[in-house]
């Protein structure tokens, strides 16, 4: 079993071991029930200050993975270790200290903010919940500082989300996520819904924050070029499994799994000279079957493939 091997970096901040999430779905008119294996036994580890990319297409289980790590969903099996402590079995009430150290930024900046709460209150909420700034004035100061940190004018704290553009809302979401000064942020497709001209702003913000606070990111995305730009290591998910995991350059230049290759060949390149005449590698999903307990094989330094 290589799961622990993959999950054991040098003193990882987050280690995920053989994590599973299965849903049992019942058809509308009781047409049998079937199990959806959203996440089906994955393992990885993230070091402090590292940006770890998780890529895959819709339905691959990458977002579920992010939610499982945060215990927003309960895993069916496997464990999540955070800073060495197993948090898988902790009751929700005992999670509070852990939640201070792990936060999430969502994809849709329109759905991620409470439309009935001022953005200032929204950013201040984690401080209140954790009793970090009991005095009102202190709290306001901290919220103002957070606003400045993410590039928002603190005078906007009294406004409601609909008065902001998509990029600004995403900044609000980030301000809330870093309010507790976490060690890890799960960024669940944080730039997908943004216009191209705004994406770069947010990505740069992520990088600045990482430099300043030593944050680790679990960066979930389907935009491979941005993942390549941001992440040191990448895992490729397909149908609930990690099919390939390794250093970014190894994955992009020496992909071993057919799915990874097909994926890489499908990404359009914004250069007519290169893009013209490029043929995406075909990939027949039905031809590929992984046994449930199939181990990953190390093919290079830290480069694993589900053979």
């Amino acid at each position: 079993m290589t799961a622990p091997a993959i999950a054991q970096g040098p003193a990882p901040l987050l280690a995920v071991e053989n994590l599973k999430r299965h849903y049992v779905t019942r058809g509308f008119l009781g047409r049998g029930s079937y199990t959806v294996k959203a996440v089906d036994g994955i393992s990885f580890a993230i070091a402090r200050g590292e940006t770890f990319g998780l890529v895959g297409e819709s339905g691959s289980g990458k977002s579920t993975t992010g939610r499982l790590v945060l215990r927003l969903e309960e895993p069916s099996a496997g464990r999540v270790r955070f800073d060495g402590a197993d948090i898988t079995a902790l009751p929700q009430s005992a999670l509070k200290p852990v939640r201070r150290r792990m936060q999430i930024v969502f994809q849709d900046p329109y759905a991620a903010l409470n439309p009935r709460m001022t953005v200032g209150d929204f950013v201040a909420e984690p401080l209140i919940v954790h009793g970090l700034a009991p005095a009102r004035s202190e709290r306001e100061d901290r919220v103002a500082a957070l606003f400045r940190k993410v590039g928002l004018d603190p005078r906007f704290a009294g406004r409601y989300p609909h008065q902001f553009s998509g990029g600004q809302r995403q900044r609000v979401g980030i301000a809330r996520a870093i309010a507790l000064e976490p060690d890890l942020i799960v960024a669940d497709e944080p730039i997908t819904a943004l216009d191209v001209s705004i994406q770069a702003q947010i990505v740069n913000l992520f990088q600045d924050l990482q430099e300043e606070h030593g944050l680790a990111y679990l960066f979930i995305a389907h935009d491979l070029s941005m993942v390549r730009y941001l992440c040191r290591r990448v895992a490729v998910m397909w149908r609930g499994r990690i099919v390939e995991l390794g250093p970014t350059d190894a994955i992009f230049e020496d992909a071993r799994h057919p799915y990874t290759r097909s994926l890489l060949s499908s990404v359009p390149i914004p250069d007519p000279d290169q893009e013209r005449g490029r043929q995406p590698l075909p990939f027949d999903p039905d031809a590929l079957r992984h046994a449930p307990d199939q181990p990953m094989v190390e093919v290079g330094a830290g480069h694993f493939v589900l053979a």
Partner: protein
Amino acid sequence: MGARGFFRALAASKAGMIGAGLVALFVLLCAAAPLLPVPEPTQSNLRARLMPPTLSWDAIGAHPLGTDNIGRDMLSRILYGGQLTLAIGAAAVVLGGFVGVLLGILAGFRGGITDRILMRLVDIQLAFPLMLLALIVAAALGPSVRNLIIVLALTSWTRYARIVRGQTLALREREFVQSARAIAASPWRIMTRHILPNVMTPALVVATLELARVIILEAALSFLGLGVQPPWPSWGRMLAEGRTYMASAWWIAAFPGLAIMLTVLSVNLLGDWLRDYFDPKLR
């Protein structure tokens, strides 16, 4: 959508404006009844019964809307009757709304067994023919304003509960609620700060539509003898009492009927406009 934007949008909508204006006018008029120069609504003069409406002020006692079947001033009864009708309607809507919103949020947020029990309750309530329920309750407890409010609220809570539950189910998956869980906010905090404010809008829309429905229902219950206790009037009761005279003294039934129709109409207009205003798809 601050208050200013709300009123600006209201002013821009003719229907919403008419609805809101009429509702405000009715409420004001009825509330101001004691200040207006009208006789007591219960003061009767048998010798001056069934007087037709008149604009002439030198007619006996001057009854602009005429007198009813035992000689009470119709205008006064319409104004005071409005107090009771609107108060009962508002109370029933608030009571039904409170229970419905509470249970709807609980069912939607807690899910599982809580949800199933509450939804079965809704089924039972819906399978209960409400007019008959009202009759039975009134026959068992006797008609009174309090019982009327309870009966009306009973028929109304399911509508809130269903809509609020649906909204809550959707909200529960919304990312800001997930985000609240991610910062370890308590379920109480999530329900009160994140879900409740976001279901209040649809609940408010339901409330306006329910207010209209409840006013109509009060009239029907009065017809079946389950209205408010005399001699204090409500529009429904006045309409029900006046039905015998519809052809011989039209004003006894026509004015309360008109009052009900106009109120229900304007509340509905307001409700429709609110729904459009709050509909994210239209904004």
